């Protein structure tokens, strides 16, 4: 009886180590698979688009400029933004434009003067269609492919 318990206990100890290793190996495998699928996704072209400046003020991007969009774009007056709109009517961090689930979305980031889409104030997160006009401060931008 004594001996069988000791043997069982050693069995459990060895099983612990074996399971630990299996866990490590499975985790590594899962990591590699995740990396593989992520790289496949990265190779796909992103739904990249442009904001074309329609109306502007001095110092801000010039009319006709095509500002390339990334997946997430912080827009505002601060130099730390992805798209810098140098207009006093724009807030330091004005709005966020992002690409998610195959569509473009705009969200106001707590700006003082609000963000407009086709002349209407953005209340929450709103979908952007190609051709929509985005108003930030006194600058107007159109989403184009």
């Amino acid at each position, binding site marked *: 009886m004594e001996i069988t318990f000791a043997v069982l206990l050693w069995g459990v100890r060895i099983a612990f180590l074996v399971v630990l290793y299996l866990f490590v190996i499975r985790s590594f495998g899962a990591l590699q698979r*995740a990396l593989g699928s992520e790289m496949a996704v990265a190779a796909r072209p992103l739904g990249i688009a442009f904001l074309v400046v329609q109306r502007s003020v001095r110092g801000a991007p010039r009319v006709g400029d095509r500002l390339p969009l990334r997946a997430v774009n912080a827009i505002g007056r601060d130099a730390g933004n992805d798209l810098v709109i140098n207009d006093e009517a724009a807030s330091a961090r004005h709005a966020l434009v992002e690409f998610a689930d195959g569509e473009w979305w705009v969200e106001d980031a707590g700006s003082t003067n609000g963000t407009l889409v086709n002349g209407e104030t953005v209340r929450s997160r709103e979908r952007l269609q190609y051709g929509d006009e985005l108003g930030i401060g006194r600058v107007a931008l159109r989403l184009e492919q």
Partner: protein
Amino acid sequence: MNKSQGAAPPASPPRWGLGGIAPRSRFTELSLLVWVGALAVLGFVAVVGAETSSFGSASILVPAIFIVLVLSLHVFLIARRFRGDQVLMPIAAGLTAIGLVLVQRLASDLLLQQLSWTIIAGGAFAATILIPRDLTALARFKWTWAFLGVLLLVAPLFPIIGREINGARIWVKVGPGSIEPWEAVKLLLVIFFAAYLEEYREVLSRSQRRIGPFPIPPIPYLVPIVAMWGIAMLVMIFEKDIGATALFFEAFYAVLGLALLLVGGFVAYQLFGHVQARVDTWLRPFDEDLRFGSGYQLVQGLYALANGGLFGAGLGNGMPDRIPVVWSDFVFDAFAEETGFAGALALLTLYLLFLYRGMVIALRAPTTFLQLLAAGLSFIIALQTLVIVGGNARLIPLTGITLPFVAYGGSSLVTNWMLVALLLRVSEVSNRMRGGP
């Protein structure tokens, strides 16, 4: 404050445009969690079996609670239709399971406490998945985080709330217990520096002046960094905790270089007795005057490592209890004694995988802030592991840093789980943007 942070406005479209689609399965995560569960059960059966010489059903209770906790986190992520990484959470859970097994083994009277902290950590994880709704909002309040961080860092120095335990004044009294504010500080500072470096990256990298081959960034922009260095040195002097200082500083020299720490460390060594004592203990722990004094803990730890050999003494079969305060300072040596080189290697590999995954998340992140955030967060876990395992193995001077997820201690467990949640959120942003898994 930010208006859009308030209550969700009515009639908004589903936030991430997934309305009507069934919850996403997280099969990879679930399959890894099965192994975590097995690990917890086997560990407890082995340890409790060795203690009581029987396989009582009592040994299953704690791992069962743990498994329920981890599975509910998994279900929570599914219910949220969370699209972030599926491997980091199981790795953290596996390490936490090993930690619980070791607390049962080394200080079973603390087990209930550690289990409660684990549940709180799970709650903190879930909360961090939910708030803030927009991760970029973190960057906007960077000076708040820096201020809070510094406040927390100096809090233990104040007479009424501060508390000195084992010669290090790094605890703050809260109710009946005490917490280690440093643990929260490391999160706050990683967030602060990610935001700071993002905002000023261009200014900082522009190099008009040079000293030798090194470009010197404009002085005003270096002020916060040098100020942080000064505070780190002050903390080292007054709180007698070299480990936290090293980590605190490394939280951003990951990006900026290590010369200042070396200089500071050297000066501190020359000036302060407790720093000298630490280094002496590290250099010659076996000397007659130290092996039963300040070097006793380290010497016992080294004996434990040696005793472990290739496959270890077996869980519950070693003598790690000979190391003083083994459950918080020397868990690595205890684990290495009972599972041997094999077990220690597996444990370190788990941390390596954590770092690997964290760095991949950082590389994939869509904005500089998120990249720096993810890199800083995963780097700090790796560094903490390096500092404490190195200290346990006498590679570097011993410090009071905890082994992430594994060592006994609530503050550390809670913040590390929040850290995992933040990493998961960064990976979710990338997946959403790129249409990944």
